[in-house]
């Protein structure tokens, strides 16, 4: 049996509702057939407040082993480091989380807020992620933190995190599999390919057929603020809700798996110099990329110029 304790803090609950849409593993199957015991989930558990207290005490006194501790939402440290903007029974929730984290075999940050702080890092609530604050290593638990298994916090970035990533991670831990993590402690399994990969607009991107308004078929990278080529994630590889992805539906990727999400520049707009995006696809050489793109535009076939290829 694998025990899971799910805690929510400065967040919206969106990762929980994302998980409900899991496809590779129906969440009913997950909890029943993989013998995962959900000790506590704020949106699901029906035990009384007293029983909940007993459960927490039992974990803290090591009577109940805790295999996976999940945090959804940022740790709120404000005002002035007190954590009083987010309390339970008059005590800062961050302290309760800290106590649980030191008793867990694995600690998983679900969603960008829990991983990197997300909304409110630069605001009054002094939000932070568990082991990162934006790109800076450390966060709430400190850069040297490892859980009882020896693993640092596993960061399942995304706003919300993709449902199959959450269920896949729980399944992997329950099965004893070990993940390789990237520099921001995201499993490379899902965070080594760009969101762009698998987008149905890729051919338009290839030939630099770029849109500057909504509702068209072309690529949204140059003008519409799409971060698909800039940030990693499985949105176009696994698809959402068994169906689609934002870019496929004409909504630019907002870069929600990035430690700096939400960015400070306006959404739906690509910061550029002379029409060329300031930020180019991850890892490219700027000069080479620009040559490639101008040649690509020249080479574009008519069927794409006419937007006859549906996305």
């Amino acid at each position: 049996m694998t025990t899971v304790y799910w805690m929510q803090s400065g967040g919206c609950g969106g990762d929980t509702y994302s998980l409900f849409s899991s496809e590779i593993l129906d969440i009913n199957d997950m909890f029943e057939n993989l013998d995962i015991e959900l000790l506590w989930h704020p949106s699901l558990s029906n035990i009384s407040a007293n029983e909940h207290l007993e459960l927490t005490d039992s974990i803290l006194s090591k009577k109940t082993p805790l295999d996976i501790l999940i945090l959804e939402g940022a740790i709120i440290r404000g005002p002035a480091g007190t954590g009083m903007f987010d309390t339970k029974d008059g005590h800062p929730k961050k302290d309760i989380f800290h106590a649980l984290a030191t008793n867990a075999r694995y600690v998983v940050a679900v969603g960008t807020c829990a991983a990197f702080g997300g909304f409110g890092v630069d605001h009054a609530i002094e939000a932070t992620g568990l082991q990162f604050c934006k790109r800076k290593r450390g966060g709430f638990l400190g850069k040297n933190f490892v859980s009882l298994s020896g693993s640092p916090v596993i960061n399942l970035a995304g706003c919300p995190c993709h449902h199959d990533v959450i269920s896949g991670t729980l399944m992997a831990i329950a099965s004893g599999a070990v993940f390789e993590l990237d520099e921001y402690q995201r499993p490379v399994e899902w965070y080594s390919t760009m969101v762009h990969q698998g987008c149905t607009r890729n051919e338009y991107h290839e030939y630099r057929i770029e849109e500057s308004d909504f509702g068209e078929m072309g690529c949204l990278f140059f003008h519409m603020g799409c971060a698909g080529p800039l940030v990693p994630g499985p949105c176009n590889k696994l698809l959402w809700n068994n169906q689609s992805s934002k870019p496929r539906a004409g909504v630019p990727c907002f870069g929600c798996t990035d430690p700096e999400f939400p960015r400070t520049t306006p959404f739906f707009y690509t910061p550029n110099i002379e029409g060329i995006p300031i930020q180019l696809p991850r890892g490219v050489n700027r000069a080479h990329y620009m040559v490639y793109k101008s040649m690509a535009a020249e080479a574009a076939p008519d069927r794409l110029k006419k937007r006859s290829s549906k996305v």
Partner: protein
Amino acid sequence: MSNIIKRINIPLNRAEGDLEVHVDVTDGVITDAWSCGTMYRGFEDMMVGRGVLDGLVITPRICGICSLSHLTAAVGVLDVLTGISVPDNAIRLSNLALMAETIQSDIRQSILMYMSDFANHEVYSKHAMFEDAFRRYSPLKGSSAQDVIRESKKLIEIIAIIGGQWPHTSFMVPGGVTSIPEIHKILQCRLIIKNFKNWYEKRVLGCSIDRWNSITSVKKLLRWLDESQRQKESEVGFFLRFCMATGIDKIGKGVENFISFGNLLLPESTTVQPIESARSATSKDNSTKDKYALESDGLKYRKRFIPSGFARGVSVEPFNQAKISEDISHSWYEPSSFVEIQAQSTNTIQPSKPIGSLHPFKGTTKPYASGNSGEQYSWTKAPRYDGLPAETGPLAEMIIQGNPLFQDMVKSNGVNAMVRQLARIVRPVALLSIMEVWLDELMVNRKAPFYNSIKDIPDGDGAGMIEAARGALGHWVSIRNSKISHYQIITPTAWNGSPRDANKLRGPWEEALIGTPIKNLNSLIEAGHVVRSFDPCMVCSVH
């Protein structure tokens, strides 16, 4: 001697975030209550200085269960500012996605969050219906709980087809929607709705939607309950029987004022007729009054499927958004000054409230630094209509629509937790049928536009007001120099879970708790039944 226990703290989960309710219990009955939102998130403050379209990306992320509601309100603001006419097809798609979100919320809240209390072994293990309740509603294991997870997941695919993903998409933009679903995807949506409707009729209602719609009084409801085993054993049937057996039908009265902002803009050309409000059914000139109330405040008037209104008891009045204010006398916020925010085009709004209770075009959100002092006890503000607390949500919609069953239930037995929750479980009845109509209209009108191009959003002030799953939701926004200069949001749970105001009037669920008998001081489950009948969404209320 009375046995008084002061200020018991009840932490309530299954409330989408953090809620603690403090109660005084005198001789086994709740005699006073305080509702405390225990988290501050600061979204309104975060919006100031951002790009004009950023509300479309950031505000949906206030809430993981009603993210499209925030998107709808945010885009409503921008459509008011541009004055653009949104194509019928965009309205149809937006409505379809929004309805799918509302239905998943209603059904998940009812089974996973409300009725899972019926499977609480500590409280109900000796009850005759417990074994059945446990088999149905145990978290993740109960048969109904698993059904709901499976069926609601399928329904949400509609939103992904239209908007790419759920939660947190931003496919509604000023002027329309970002893509046109292919023919086979529209047809797939129809199939998804058909399947969902079949399941909903068979398992949730236990009868056809037509049969349900023929229930127009308490008497007919009781007759329906006894009519067949299938109806008796349906989720609605079980819910009614459990509530009546445990007294949930006798607790949770509340303030008996109701508010609805109205919802679901009607396309200009559609066979769907708006639900007439109870008010217009009895008086003749009200449609023009309604129009005036909205237009005078800079809101473009469009007919909506679900009417707006305010009701005292079951008597419905014209709705005027200028009568809305937010009081912060008992919330951890610093008072704002009138001069600070001068919303120039809001001259028509002159709230006759004392300072400390401001219309959302004027109010601000500044957390009180110490977070703990004197009379203040919540991060939720106290919205008021005409100075009064008001309940919002499906029951409020039913009352304002003049739904005969719910009007009769309230007239006969008063407001209670059962009727409030019943309104939620059966709200999909009205929505599912028109979803099918709008999909058919989309097929016929597929060549018509889905988006009208907008190049610039002008400076100005606008409000986006809709009914989210949990009730009245509004965004009040000012744009200056092409940037957001003011963003105030009033969420449904701020109405329902508000703290006291300067006049010491309790918020709706604080008031609803008064008089609730408590059998077991360890569980206080009755308080949970009352508060959860409002479907709290704390993450929204403490945005």
